[in-house]
C-alpha cells in the first residue's frame, strides 16, 4: 500500500530558479526510503513538501490515496497524526523551557488525542530506551544522543505510520550514532521511515529503497542494495567513490 505518493512535483522558491524538477516517488508501508543528496540538492525542500509545510509549484503530493490539501484542517490533522518528523539538531528542536514530559506529550494535546497521558509517555520513553524519571527534567540535562531519543519519543507518541527523519544522526558522535541507528531499526518494525541524509552508509543500513538527488533532479532511484552494487548514474558513482573507507 502506498502511504505517500509524489507525482510530477516541481518546486520553486523564486521565479528565477527551480529547486525541484519533476519529482516522482512512492513511499510504501514497511519500506523505508532514503533521500540522498549533498548540500543544495533539494533534499530538505523535498522533505518540507512531504511534511506539508510547502505546497508544490506544480504536481501533487498524495497521502493515503488523496491529494494533500494544506487548507483542509480536518485532513491536515489526520495527516499530522500519521506523519511525524525528527530533525538534525537535538539542541534546537526541543523547547528548553519545557519539561521532558510536556515536550513528549505535546502532540497528544495539539492533535487532540484522548487517553492516559502518563501511560502514553511512559510507553514511548521505554520504546526509545530512556528511564521514566526523565520526565521531570529539562532538555539541557541530557546529552545529544539522549535528546535525540526525546525527539524520537515525541515523534512516535501519536503512533504515526510515517516518520520523516532529516539527518537525525549527523550531529551525534560515532558511538551514540550507532545506538540511535539501532533504535531506528527497531522502530522500523512498526512504522515507515523517510530518511533524508548525505550519508550513504546510514541509508544503506536502514532503507530498502533510495533516491539520489542532484541539483533538484532524481538521478537514480530503486532498491538500495542494487544501486550500491551497480550505480548507473555518474553522480552516484562519484558519490560512492568519495566515501572514505576503513582500511581492510
Amino acid at each position, binding site marked *: 500500500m502506498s502511504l505517500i505518493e509524489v507525482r510530477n512535483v516541481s518546486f520553486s522558491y523564486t521565479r528565477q530558479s527551480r529547486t525541484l524538477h519533476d519529482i516522482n516517488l512512492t513511499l510504501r508501508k514497511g519500506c523505508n526510503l532514503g533521500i540522498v543528496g549533498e548540500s543544495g540538492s533539494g533534499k530538505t525542500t523535498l522533505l518540507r513538501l512531504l511534511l506539508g509545510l510547502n505546497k508544490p509549484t506544480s504536481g501533487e503530493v498524495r497521502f493515503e490515496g488523496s491529494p494533500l490539501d494544506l487548507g483542509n484542517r480536518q485532513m491536515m490533522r489526520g495527516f499530522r497524526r500519521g506523519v511525524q518528523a525528527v530533525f538534525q539538531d537535538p539542541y534546537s528542536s526541543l523547547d528548553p523551557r519545557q519539561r521532558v514530559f510536556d515536550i513528549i506529550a505535546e502532540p497528544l494535546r495539539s492533535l487532540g488525542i484522548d487517553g492516559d497521558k502518563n501511560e502514553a509517555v511512559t510507553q514511548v520513553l521505554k520504546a526509545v530506551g530512556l528511564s521514566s524519571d526523565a520526565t521531570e527534567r529539562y532538555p539541557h540535562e541530557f546529552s545529544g544522543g539522549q535528546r535525540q531519543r526525546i525527539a524520537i519519543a515525541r515523534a512516535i507518541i501519536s503512533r504515526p505510520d510515517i516518520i520523516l527523519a532529516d539527518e537525525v544522526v549527523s550531529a551525534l558522535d560515532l558511538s551514540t*550514532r550507532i545506538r540511535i541507528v539501532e533504535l531506528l531499526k527497531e522502530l522500523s518494525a512498526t512504522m515507515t521511515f523517510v530518511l533524508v541524509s548525505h550519508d550513504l552508509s546510514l541509508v544503506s543500513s536502514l532503507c530498502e529503497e533510495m533516491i539520489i538527488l542532484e541539483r533538484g533532479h532524481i538521478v537514480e532511484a530503486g532498491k538500495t542494495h542494487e544501486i550500491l552494487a551497480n550505480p548507473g548514474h555518474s553522480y552516484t558513482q562519484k*558519490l*560512492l567513490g568519495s566515501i572514505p573507507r576503513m582500511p581492510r
Partner: protein
Amino acid sequence: MTTLLDIRELNIEANGKKLVSDLSFTIAAGERLGLIGESGSGKSLTALAAIGLLPEGLQASGSVILDNRQVIGARDRDLVPLRGTAAAVIFQEPLTALDPLMKIGQQVGNAVKRRAKRDGGPTDKASIQREVLALLDQVALPDPYRISAAWPHEISGGQRQRAAIAMALACKPKLLIADEPTTALDVTTQAEILALLGKLVRERDMALLFISHDLPVVAGAVERVVVMQHGRVVETGAVSTVFDQPEHAYTQSLVAAARAFDDALEIAR
C-alpha cells in the same frame, strides 16, 4: 629525524576542572599524525595548546616544545614568530575562519606579505599579487584571478576551505595542524580536499597533525594515530595496528562502530 612537536605531560584545566590530563606525544619533521576522539575528548584544546592559542581562562601546564621552543608559559609576543613558520592551522568551518569583510586575495596576501617581510623577500604589490595567484592555483582553485577578487560569501564551502589552506601554505609552515578540516563539507568535496591536503603535505614535506572524529578519514590521511577519551590518551600506534587490533576497550568500540557503518557499504565495494 628531528622532533618538530614534543608534548610532554600536558595538562589543561579550567577553574580546577581537568580538561586534558598527562597528555604526551611527538611529531617528527614530515610525519603525519592523527588525533582521534569524540566531542569533548580534548583534541581541539590539545591543538590550540600546541601553538599557544588556548582561550583565556584555561591554564596549561607541562611541556610543549614546538620547533625547539617552549610554548607553555611563553609570552604571546615570543610565540608570534612561531605561528605560521613553525605551525599553521586550518579550522573546521572556513566561513568563520575567513574575515567576511576582506576579499580572498587580500587575506591570502596578508599572510604572504608577513612571510615576505620576515624572509626579506619582495613586498611590492605586484610580487604579492603574483604569489597569491600562484598559491590559489596550487590549492586547485579554478580561475584564481576571479577568486582572489571575491568575498568569502561569494564562493562555495569547498572553495573557502581551499582559500584557508592557501593562507596556511603562504606561511610555509613546517607543521600543518588541520582541525576537522572536512567535517563541514559535502562528501565529494571532502574527498577532493583530502586528496589536496595529502598531495601538498607530501610535496612540501610538511608534518601534519590531523584532528578528526571520523576514523576512515583519519585512516586515509595519516600514518600514526593517538586516540583520546575524556582528555586522556587511551591508545597510540600505527593506523594499521590500531584499526586492526585495537587494544583499549574504547578504541575497540569506536573501531567496531566505524566498521559497522563501513560494512553497510560492503556491497558497493
